């Protein structure tokens, strides 16, 4: 299989990572060599194999629905790149 520049542009859009032409070409080369390597899995027949989603063979524990952390607002916004006392600030969304 081959990943072309159009696919790279599509993945970059889904990934929210901007790429210019030069970077797209480099990525296409890298991804193609990596996927050539991944294709090896097609040698295996896996029709009747259950997918493994977690190695921890336990069911998730239930806990009571209690608030344990309180008044974290200052901590939560402390590392915000644009400071404002109460909010995260982003570029204007509505014209």
């Amino acid at each position, binding site marked *: 299989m081959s990943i072309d520049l159009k696919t790279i542009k599509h993945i970059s859009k889904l990934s929210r990572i901007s790429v210019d032409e030069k970077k797209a070409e480099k990525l296409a080369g890298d991804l193609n060599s*990596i996927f050539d390597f991944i294709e090896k899995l097609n040698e295996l027949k896996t029709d009747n194999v259950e997918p493994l989603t977690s190695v921890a063979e336990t069911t998730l524990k239930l806990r009571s629905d209690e608030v344990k952390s309180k008044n974290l607002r200052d901590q939560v916004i402390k590392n915000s*790149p644009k400071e404002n006392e109460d909010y995260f600030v982003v570029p204007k969304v509505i014209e």
Partner: protein
Amino acid sequence: MSDITKQSLSELVENIKSKKLSSSEVTKAFVERSEKSKELNAYITEDYANALNKAKNFDKKPNLDLKLPGIPMAVKDLFCTRDLRTTAGSKILNNFVPTYESTVTQNIWNEGAILIGKLNCDEFAMGSSNETSFFGNVQNPIDQNLVPGGSSGGSSSAVAAQLTPITIGTDTGGSIRQPASFTGTVGLKPTYGSCSRYGIVAFASSLDQAGPMAQNVKDCALLQEVISTYDEKDSTSIDFKRNEYSKELTKDIKGKKIGIPKEYRVDGMSKEIEELWKKGIEYAKDCGAEIIDISLPHTNYALPTYYIVAPAEASSNLARYDGVKYGFRAEGENLIDMYEKTRSEGFGAEVQRRIMIGTYVLSSGYYDAYYLKAQKVRKLIKNDFDEAYKKVDVILTPSTPSSAFKIGEKTNDPVSMYLNDIFTVPVNLAGLPGISIPAGHDAKGYPLGLQIIGKAFDEQNILNIAYAMEEKINFKNNITDWWLK
């Protein structure tokens, strides 16, 4: 005492407990040696002044019942430390100061240890040579311009160079065991669910585990005992009976069954590694263990499986870095433009590559062909181990297919870099514990490691076997202090 930094963790603990040394003396010694070792670039963030203060406070009212009384320790910069910058080796977290502490580091401070700094690592732990770090590559103390392994490269370098008596790393596909092998140190990747992932910057959540990196097996067992706790803040943390690993450590491994998987004799494996493995088998026999040939038929499929599962989980985990809530932000014309520029400028090339792979294999139309397929093969790989463990107690393999390589040698070929993890990745996919111990040198004098893989939750057995073999191997690291200023 002038040779404080040469002492093992266990010796330091004993000397502090018997009041032969104070925490201040020990902390000062490691801080001074770290200051003279900037050439290694092992640290991203130093916290020396605070550490010396904490040591002074400890000495005023020393609690000598603790397991790590007043012991200074640097940790991988993937663990969130309250009020001390945590970068994950990335520009995107360059200015991130956590307001909370990871469970694993909290466990360590609760036992009396003192943080001296944050250690370099591959960006978001994605790499095998520490060359993807935004903060530059790390030198291996073994030789100039040699990689220390990765992703826990600052950790392996710092322990081997005695900048910290012991440390912790994280291991998603080999990131503790491979750097331990490259630097002649001991590294343990615990069973998945053994150490809490709370407060560790996430890479691939179904594979990530924290673990100790040490100068010897006994130190490693002691730190594992401290960091392995059940934690309700991590929903995959497992509540099982944990041993007091260091107290229960024994060299008596008579009659233990050690499996040798034939599939690990991979194409192109060097003669030196083959010889090392044979020697390891002889050492194990000398200790009274029984050697049994086994088969792990899907070994060759582990790396391709890993390079679907890990990037898929990473692409999802790293979606949170959007320039809004914390970390680096690049200004954009609108919201989407801001996201795209932030992520394009904030992430390095390897991280972007993996996010793209992950996004692709999870995208509409490709999910079944890649991600689902990989999960099925992962099941086959785990079944291989389950079968093998019906016949043996542990499995012995080399840790890596080669010794440490030169900085820059593999940076242009991602696949050849990935092949470094060929012996370590299956262990993560199956969620098992594995330990790398130094076992010999190659012709250049660089260290080589052997890996012992255990059954799930059976850290004690692999520690015991490592402990017994360590004595027989009697490994000595050739470190000349070439970097000291």
